[in-house]
């Protein structure tokens, strides 16, 4: 187990460097003047250009720039925006909101998705099964921004149940609807995954054995069937947490949530390269570590899987 984790950690390094380098190159190696429009309507004074070039190592080859940036990042220094604001502070302000939103989304999709999956998976074909299949189909087909807009206008403006704009330090209650919107697509997948997995395992030998031993139905389902069937679901939920944080741009935009997504979107539009690379690096790191965690968890949940 220890060796497996170590090997995976080593494998993470090239992937991490590859992903962050692509973003770094895309953001910084663009042809064109990086200072265009930074000083208002006139062109930047030479002293400013010289200082900025030195500070961001712009006169060196891209690969050197990148590794200097990475080294600086590992000392915990995210750098500054062009206006001199510490990017670390910006991230520290926005990150808790996004994490909260992602966790709310994950909880909603986990609870509703698994519940719907179990209900339909155990009962088999029937009205409820068709209902869940069709409604998940609709959730999968709806782009997030359409769901978000419709819910915002309907619940917020028409019924006045929620605030259409979420404040800077939102409570869990305020994040319920945005979380639902963010998690709706994955919720449909979770429901379908649970259902398929249960349907496949329902006829497995170990379930028959457990029933034949005279165990109560509750125990057969709760301990034997669910524990085995939920393994792929847990895997999906784990990887999804990493994906939800990076995917929150649209949801945060619709509900005016001041999280990482809004920050990075604004940074991309205003060409704040430092902010973009910093946030993307962070997101990629979270995503990769979540994947590793899920793989390790897999072995804990399913003792048949051995990595050595």
């Amino acid at each position, binding site marked *: 187990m220890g060796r497996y984790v170590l090997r995976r950690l080593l494998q993470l390094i090239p992937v991490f460097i590859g*992903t962050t380098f692509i973003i770094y190159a895309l953001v910084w190696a663009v042809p064109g003047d990086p200072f265009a429009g930074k000083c208002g309507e006139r062109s930047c004074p030479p002293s400013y250009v010289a200082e900025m070039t030195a500070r961001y190592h712009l006169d060196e080859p891209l690969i050197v720039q990148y590794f200097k940036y990475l080294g600086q990042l590992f000392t915990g220094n995210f750098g500054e925006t062009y206006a001199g604001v510490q990017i670390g502070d910006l991230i520290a302000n926005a990150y808790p909101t996004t994490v909260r939103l992602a966790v709310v989304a994950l909880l909603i999709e986990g609870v509703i998705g698994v519940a719907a999956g179990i209900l339909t998976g155990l009962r088999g074909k029937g009205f409820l099964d068709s209902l869940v299949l069709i409604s998940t*189909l609709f959730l999968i087909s*709806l782009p997030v921004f359409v769901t978000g807009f419709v819910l915002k206008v309907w619940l917020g403006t028409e019924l006045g149940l929620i605030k259409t704009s979420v404040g800077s330090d939102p409570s869990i209650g305020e994040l319920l609807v945005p979380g639902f919107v963010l998690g709706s697509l994955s919720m449909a997948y979770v429901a379908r995954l649970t259902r398929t997995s249960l349907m496949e395992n329902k006829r497995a030998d170990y379930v028959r054995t457990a029933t034949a031993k005279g165990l109560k139905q509750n125990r057969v389902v709760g301990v034997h069937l669910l524990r085995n069937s939920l393994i792929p679901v847990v895997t999906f939920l784990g990887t999804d947490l990493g994906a939800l944080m990076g995917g929150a*741009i649209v949801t945060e935009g619709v509900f005016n949530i001041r999280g990482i997504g809004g920050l990075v979107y604004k940074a991309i539009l205003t060409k704040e390269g430092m902010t973009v690379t910093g946030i993307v690096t962070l997101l990629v790191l979270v995503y990769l570590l979540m994947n590793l965690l899920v793989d390790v968890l897999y072995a804990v949940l399913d003792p048949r899987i051995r990595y050595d």
Partner: protein
Amino acid sequence: MTEPTASSPTTEDTQAPPAPEQAAPAGSYSAGTSARPAEAEKPRGLWGDAWHDLVRRPMFLVASVIILVLLAMVAFPQLFTSVDPNHADLLKSREGPSAEAWFGYDLQGRDIFSRTVHGARASVIVGLLATLGTVLIGSVVGILSGYYGGWVDNLLSRFSEIFLGLPFVLGAIVILTTFNSPQEIPSGTRVIMQVVTSIAVLSWPIAMRIMRSAAIAAKQQDYVKAARALGATPRRIILRHMLPNCLAPVLVYATIALGGFIGAEATLSYLGLGLKFPVVSWGVMISDSREFIQASPHLLLFPAGFLVVTVLAFVMLGDAVRDALDPKQK
């Protein structure tokens, strides 16, 4: 997109890409010397079974009808409407649906029905090309990495993870802003190609993973071992033996992804980074409508409705094909 199913009654042969070897079996068909013509009398294969199963599924039929209508809309929008989608009459700004304009008018007084019909083309083309790119790159990389294994597999898998680690929307935004400076307004085809490329670049690892696991499973099969024992080159084994047998799961993914990519194009247009005027697409229309949703919901309702129904049709088609191909369900 109906090809995978429409061509399924014929054997796997049609699924192989045009390879140099393709000419030989075609010749032997007419000559009738090889064992192949005898196969036609045999019980149906995987694809034949699936087709037999599919035509009995209402979900498949509904999805096919929707997709056929949509394709007609893409090819001949004039059949559905004679109004110019970019003709604006400011007097009619945001007028509701009427007998004259079934879906009403948008902010600039353009006929929404006509725009929705004409918008199908850009949306579907982006979806189709992006799916094609994703499947092509993913299949090639996936089958190579599954067949060769070892360090090739390790290298290619790590390489694909690089792109998998990038959040989709974020990656697409970075790519699209990098190649378009905000000052210039790029031409329609250029933006379409950029959107297609960014979707394909960020999605191929999923197709690659599916193809890779199918190829690893197929590699263990007796027919591959037999082919290798007979001295077939890796190229022949991959193209003639493994590819036809590994294609099914990727095609199912492609059908479902096609719907998703149409939605992705709309999301990018909504963010103001995808297609732009004068190109008409559903995403552009939805993006235009967002300031006025409360006052005139029909601006959002009709393009969004078309978008959802289209995505729904492709997801349904993919679902039905997957169920038909999955032997576990029988």
